[in-house]
């Protein structure tokens, strides 16, 4: 099998997630009909033929069989070309790559999911997975923040979760906005206010570096042990299978051994992320 040969997927649906049109979601269905199996937190290399490949976390949950969902921020060559694509266009997918969140380890435990900005993609996948297998897990708390309401992803899902009684959802934006009746403030502050119990619990943190930087001390204060806090890292990637060299942190490759690491693991590695 050629690890560099992508599977062809067709764009089934596209939707702008944010009001500034920089975040666009793509629902992809396999051309040959074989949907891949994966674990929440894994990612894929998406090929836009002629432009190149880029890695994106899978935003759909494994049980959502209508297609793979990716949310793409428009920044460079590949993402720019992707944003120009419409329904029916063919892209290449290599994956699933990486390790994914340790959902088996989470079994029987409470999970606190903390996300910021458009890094919520794989957290959506994780949350939906946990809800699908609801009986296997304890309390589920989601804290999700963005700069302003218009930048919150997956509004439909968020609305669904708010209606459910078996998940605690805290949404926040950085400053006051008209008609915003939820939390106001940065994610770490909201986390401190919500103060989820570390008892028999895991925390998963994903977001911009500055958010993570200020969230970790709060988690420590709340009493979360370092091996109970997971985060997903981002690095420039090319091959996705630990061959091309660039995404290493110490002897580990983010693409192969990551992207999900526990704080305990990261503590032993150079701060190259």
């Amino acid at each position, binding site marked *: 099998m050629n690890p560099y040969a992508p599977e062809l997927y067709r764009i089934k649906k596209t939707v702008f997630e944010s009001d500034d049109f920089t975040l666009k979601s793509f629902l992809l269905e396999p051309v040959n009909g074989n949907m891949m199996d994966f674990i929440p937190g894994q990612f894929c290399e998406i090929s836009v033929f002629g432009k*190149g490949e880029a890695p994106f976390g899978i935003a759909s949950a494994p049980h959502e069989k209508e297609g793979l969902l990716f949310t793409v921020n428009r920044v*460079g*060559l590949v993402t*720019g070309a992707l944003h120009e694509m419409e329904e029916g266009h063919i892209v290449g997918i290599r994956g699933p790559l990486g390790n994914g969140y340790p959902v088996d380890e989470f079994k029987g435990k409470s999970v606190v999911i903390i996300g910021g900005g458009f890094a919520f993609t794989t957290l959506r996948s994780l949350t939906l997975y946990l809800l699908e297998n609801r009986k296997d897990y304890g309390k589920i708390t989601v804290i999700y923040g963005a700069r302003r309401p218009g930048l919150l992803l997956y509004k439909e899902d968020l609305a669904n979760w708010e209606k459910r009684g078996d998940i605690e959802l805290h949404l926040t934006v950085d400053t006051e906005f008209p008609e915003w009746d939820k939390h106001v403030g940065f994610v770490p502050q909201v986390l401190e206010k919500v103060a989820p119990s570390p008892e028999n619990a895991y925390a998963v943190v994903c977001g911009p570096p500055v958010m993570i930087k200020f969230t970790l001390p709060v988690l420590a204060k709340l009493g979360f042990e370092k091996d109970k806090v997971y985060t997903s890292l981002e690095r420039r990637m090319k091959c996705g299978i630990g061959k091309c060299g660039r995404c290493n942190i110490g002897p580990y490759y983010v693409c192969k051994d990551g992207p999900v690491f526990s704080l305990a693991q990261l503590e032993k590695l150079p701060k190259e992320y």
Partner: protein
Amino acid sequence: MVEKIREIARKLLGEGKVDVVLGYEKGTGPLSERPFVARTVEEVEKLTYSPFAIQNLATYLPRFNNNKVAILARGCTTRAINVLISEGQIERDKIYVIGIPCNGVIKTRELRESIGEEIEDVSIQNGEIVIKTPKEEKKVKFEDWLNISCKYCEYPNPLFYDVLVGEEVKPRGGGYPDVEEYEKLDEDERWEIFEAEMSKCVRCYACRQSCPMCYCEHCFVDSTEPRWIEPGFDKTDLESWHLIRVLHMAGRCVDCGTCELVCPEGVKLLFLTRKVARDLKRDFDYVSGLNPEKPPFFGEFRYDDKGDFIL
């Protein structure tokens, strides 16, 4: 000369007048002298200088923008400093220039490769480079192995300095006979040579990185939007890369020759940069790096610039 350099460096570092001294130290094995950053008085003992020190030290200056730096400078180094000042990359008053009149540098890599066997020792005596190998003692003429820019160098003496080491030397008398020689060839021969040279390139970018003028954070060769140069080793990409780099050097290249001297594949680049320098001098009376106040060549114009090539 070396003792004098060390003495100055010792004093500067000892009195805290500078944080670092940019100089040269002996490299691994004979025929190589490499850049060295002396930070302490003890390290000064490593400083040395000879015509085998090929790297233009001005390349390192922008890295030390937060420090007071003393720099060993030949004519071309001071010209590079001027260009860097005129382009706002460095400040003159943070730099202490230890001027060195220069007799030219040697094409060390080419010489080493031409010897083809282990070199045990090298010395310069009476205009000759004496090379000792396990089998014999070879003598080659100093002039024959001079870097081509040095051979016709007009500015061997530092244009400015805070202290000068040694006596000023007589310029060798400029001119661009190498360029003129190439021009005499017919069109197809020229293209053949050009193509052969460029196709040797392995895209390690040693030329770019060693060049004092290539300080750009984002080089056009790395740009993906638009993609000026495609990845891979198509001849046209290699040719475009070097051509455009030479164009970016127009009026900025100080003809130190470092790019060509450091190239691991020995790609000839000076016949391009020197051609542009010749044109600028002949047709626009512009010589790079003589005056830090002067705007860059492409940043100004004259109403009577050459225009007869335009229909």
